[in-house]
Every structure is written in structure tokens, then in C-alpha cells.
């Protein structure tokens, strides 16, 4: 077992899958960086350095820089996926979804259904989400709920380096379009990541810790914040379970219901905006199917229904904090 960053874990998953299957190609803006320039041909390796070194190993035929043209490059990924390749497209920021949504929502996601089950579209779209880097309204959003709303797409939200590698390998081997959400503030996070290839299956959540009083369900980077809150609650004698769904489409409904039933008190933590989001979806699932087990109303801790602000003091207030989560834990415990 080796210690690797979230960035290195993703890079290794791409590398190992490209070595295993020559149908796997990478498409994106500056994923090599410098194509056609007079300097280095692998100048960036992606804006966050995630794909660094891969063009040197696999060449420009399999690591394709593009013009800044998200609609065309995501659509080309969809078309290539339907005709025999297994493209991994990098959509640099999930905020750029607005200019390429049609190719995901109306094309890739619907091919299989529209065409009567006779087409596979093994497309992966890697994209970064999340606030915390002072990047403000158009480079900080958390939009996975929009993807999860669309039938035909699968959505993975790895919360640590181990899951990042295993979920990405599953995504690339999957025959459906997968949106792979990378939190931009987590690329330097370090964790145990085996060097050998392995997969983390979709639709299987993970229980990080078990406690008898309150069940906390958190998504993506919010696992870290929730862990701090759970630590703080322990000082007050409250023992919490912590659940990471790992993929939000498919969603491990069985595990969520089981863990909700165990304590009857549930807090859901999500960095996204609250309306019609995955936190609301999980709350509704629990209310519909585990109502009889509940001891308290389900509480959501999310960002407010605002864009992401710039000023650090505002952005810090925007993000769900350990204090807010701890307060929610106490609230459901005391109900």
C-alpha cells in the first residue's frame, strides 16, 4: 500500500486503464497543454496537473488537447463512445456544463434508451466541482445533482484518494456515460492507494464509522467536514454513524435506509445548493421509506440558495461548516 494524493490516484487510474485497453483515450482542454506550441508538449497535464505525463506515454493520438470548445469536445466524446472508443473527457470545471449540457442530457444519456437498448455509450466525463478556492460564482459550483437528475447518466463523487482511483476505474470500464466529480480542493489530499488496479463498485456506499445516536450522510468533500463535526459531538457524548454514498446515481438506497433506521435520527450534509438537490432527494427517500423508524425530522446541512461568493468571509460562510453540522447533530439528538 502506498500513500498517494487524490490527484495521483486519478492519474494512476487513467494510466492503468489506458495501458489495459487501447480504446481508452483522453480528450480535454490543456490535458497535455502546449500542443502546437513551441515549448513543452506536456506543459500542464490539465489545469490541475491530473493528466500530467500521460501524453508522453500514450502519445497525441490518445491524449487529445482541444480548442476551448466544450460543446464540441463533450459531443465528440459521446460520438466516439457510441462508435467504439472509451473516451475520458475532461470538462475543466463543472460550471462549464451550461455550454455543453445538450450533448450529455439529450445525446449521450439517451442513446441507449432512445435506440431501444441497442447502443452502448461508455463515456466518462471527469469534472471538478466545489468551493473553497476563492474562485467565485462561475468556478466553484457543486452541480452533481443536475447530472443525477438525468436518467441514463451515472454520477460518482469520490471523497478520498482510494475511492477516486477505484471509482474511476469502474467508470472507465462501465458501458454507460459516467460523470466523475472531483473536488478541486482535494487534489492534494493524501491517502492509502494500492498500486495495483482495483475497482470500487457503483451503487455501494460505505460506512466510515458507526454510532448509536445519529446517522450522518455526507457527499464528497463534506465527509471531511462531517468527520470534524462528529468528533466535536463526541465531546457532548453523542455517537454518530457516518455514511458515504460514493455514487449518487446509482444511489445505495438500501444502505441509507438501513443506517437511517438504526438511529432514527439523520443529518444529511451536502455542499450543493439546497433546492431539488441530492440532500433533498435522500431526505425524501428516508421520509417515504423509513418514516416509521424516525425519531426526529431529517435535517439537511447545505450551502444556502445563493451563488458562490468571492470574498473569503462570505465563501467560508457559504460552505457547510463543522459547527453547523455539529449543531444539526445536537438538534436531531435532542428532538
Amino acid at each position: 500500500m502506498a500513500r498517494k494524493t487524490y490527484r495521483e490516484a486519478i492519474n494512476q487510474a487513467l494510466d492503468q486503464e489506458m495501458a489495459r485497453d487501447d480504446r481508452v483515450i483522453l480528450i480535454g482542454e490543456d490535458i497535455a497543454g502546449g500542443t502546437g506550441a513551441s515549448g513543452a508538449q506536456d506543459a500542464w497535464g490539465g489545469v490541475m496537473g491530473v493528466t500530467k505525463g500521460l501524453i508522453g506515454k500514450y502519445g497525441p493520438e490518445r491524449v487529445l488537447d482541444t480548442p476551448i470548445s466544450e460543446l464540441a469536445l463533450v459531443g465528440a466524446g459521446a460520438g466516439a463512445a457510441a462508435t467504439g472508443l472509451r473516451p475520458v473527457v475532461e470538462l475543466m470545471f463543472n460550471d462549464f456544463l451550461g455550454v455543453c449540457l445538450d450533448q450529455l442530457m439529450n445525446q449521450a444519456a439517451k442513446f441507449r434508451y432512445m435506440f431501444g437498448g441497442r447502443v452502448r455509450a461508455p463515456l466518462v466525463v471527469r469534472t471538478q466541482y466545489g468551493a473553497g478556492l476563492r474562485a467565485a460564482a462561475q468556478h466553484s459550483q457543486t452541480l452533481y445533482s443536475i447530472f443525477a437528475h438525468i436518467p441514463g447518466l451515472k454520477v460518482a463523487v469520490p471523497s478520498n484518494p482510494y475511492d477516486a482511483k477505484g471509482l474511476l476505474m469502474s467508470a472507465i470500464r462501465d458501458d454507460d456515460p459516467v460523470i466523475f466529480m472531483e473536488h478541486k480542493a482535494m487534489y492534494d489530499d493524501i491517502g492509502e492507494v494500492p498500486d495495483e488496479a482495483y475497482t470500487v463498485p457503483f451503487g455501494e456506499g460505505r460506512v466510515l464509522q458507526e454510532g448509536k445516536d445519529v446517522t450522518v450522510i455526507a457527499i464528497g468533500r463534506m465527509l471531511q467536514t462531517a468527520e470534524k463535526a462528529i468528533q466535536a459531538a463526541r465531546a457532548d457524548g453523542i455517537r454518530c454513524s457516518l455514511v458515504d454514498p460514493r455514487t449518487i446515481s446509482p444511489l445505495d438506497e438500501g444502505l441509507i435506509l438501513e443506517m437511517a433506521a438504526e438511529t432514527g435520527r439523520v443529518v444529511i450534509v451536502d455542499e450543493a445548493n439546497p433546492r431539488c438537490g441530492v440532500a433533498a432527494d435522500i431526505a425524501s427517500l428516508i421520509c417515504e421509506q423509513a418514516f416509521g423508524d424516525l425519531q426526529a425530522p431529517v435535517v439537511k446541512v447545505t450551502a444556502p440558495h445563493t451563488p458562490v461568493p468571492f470574498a473569503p468571509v462570505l465563501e467560508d460562510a457559504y460552505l457547510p461548516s463543522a459547527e453547523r453540522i455539529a449543531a444539526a447533530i445536537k438538534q436531531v439528538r435532542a428532538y
Partner: protein
Amino acid sequence: MSRRDNQLRQAFWKMTAIRRFEERVHLENEKGSIPGFIHLYAGQEACAVGVCMELGERDYIASTHRGHGHAIAKGCDITAMMHELHAKQGGICAGKAGSMHMADLTVGMMGANGIVGAGNPLVCGAALTAKTRKTGGVAVSFMGDGASNQAATLESFNLAVVWKLPVIFVVEDNGYAEATPSSWSIGGGDLIKRAEGFGMPGFSADGFDYFAVNEAAGKAVARARNGDGPSLLYLTCTRYYGHFEGDAATYRARGEVEELMEKRDCLSAFKSRVLAGGMMSADELAGIEAEVADLIDTSVRSAVADVEPDVSRLTTDVYATY
């Protein structure tokens, strides 16, 4: 029979099949036996067939909301298409597509498309597959004049040039984007110049003339196959029906369509040309017409007799794996 004679037979068969298919769909839709939104291709047959006669099994096309003609030209099963329009289990997409979304990737047809211009990025992907896998294939995107102003189209023009993809962008200018004339809606007014602005050649041809379309398509396809990159094919044509079935087409001048049907019919032009040149006989042409008429009749009877999709199919095929 020589290859050329065989090609002409096939071309006439397909053009006739498209015309009779669309005329019959028009009637069946009026009778109420075909639900949903229908956009008919009649009048433009020389465009689809002129291009697709240059393509083979390894080549892909993407189509439009007006997609029946392209599907037939690329080799989709006509009976299965008729079943699909009738919303039956035996449809080419098992009754889940209908007119605007039908596809059969096993014959290289990537789909009609309800989103104008959306096929252009998709063919860039199909061409990338061909280039990466070295299949020797090319990919063709059919679009209307309306699609020439979509972002998807303009981004695809650029990407295809930058990546030097084996793509042929085919604009069929039938005069109207829905109800809006192309003469009003296309900035600059000249799509050949627009193609050249992106760094690819543009070829134009009379879309009523199968031979002209086929010759121009041959140049574009040869370029793509030789690894010389994309090009644009600009075809002028007309549609005989409204934008959609039920469109009274009041934006067209009184008598405009009737005059075009009389003077600019690609099927009549084809027949005159092959008869005058001694390339096909009147008997051969009549034989094909009879064969096609029989096929269309049979396909409708078969579609009407087929069952509707089982309701249990509502939730299948969303994913390949669950």
C-alpha cells in the same frame, strides 16, 4: 451488370423508396395511425442518396429531425422504420424512438436528432473513432440551413479542422428553417465562404440533381478518406411538405411548392437523364417503382399488425448495466 449500372439502380431504388415512404407516412399520419411529431423529407431525396451512395458499412452518418430519408439512404430497414413510426414493438428502436430519434448504429446511422445541429459534434466523435482505430471510415453530418447557425455546428467545424477529422458536413438548404427563410437567417449569406473561413473547402451542388450531388460528395468523401480533413457540402433543395405534418406553410408563396414539384423534382430529373443517356430502361425504372410500392404497402400492413411495446419496457434500457 456493371458497378455503375448497379449504383444507378440502387440510387433510384433508394430515392423512390424515400419518396413513397414519406408520401405514405403523410397519409397514415392524416389517418391517425402514426402518433407524434413528423417531419417529411420528400423533395430532398437526391441529397441523402447522392451522398450516401459514396458511403459504405464502415462509415457513419448523423441526421436531423427530418431523418427518414437519411436513414433509408444509409441502409436502415424500411419495414422496421415503418414499425417504429407506428410505435410498435418491432420498430427499429423497439418503439422508444419514433420519427425524431430513430437510429441503427449497426448500419452506421447514428440517429435522427430532435436537437438542431447536435449531430455535428457526434460525427466528430465517430470520425475520431475511425481515425484512432484506423478503420478508413468517414463520418457525415446532415443538417438543414437552420443548423448552420448553431453553436454545435460552428464548434464542430473548428474542431474537425483542428483535429483534421474525416468528416463531411452536409448542409441541405431547403429554403426554410421552420418558417424562417435561409436568405434572412444566415449571416454573410454564403456557407461556402463560412467553411473556407474555418479552413476547410466547401463544395456546392444542385440538390435536385442526384448526379451533381453524388459528384460533389465523391470529392468530399475522397478528401476525408485520404486523410486531408473535413469539408462542407452545400446543397440547395426544397421540401414538398410543411416543416412538420400539420404545418400549413403559409410562409411560402401561393403555388411555390406546386411549381417546384413540377419543375424541380429530383426523381423526374433522374429518370430523364438515365433514359436519355441509355443508362437505364423504362422497364427497369418501372420495375423498381413497382418493387418499392409493394415494399411500402407490405411494411405498413406489417406495422399495423405488430403489437405495441409491452408496458414493462418503460423502465428497461436506461442503462447498459445496473
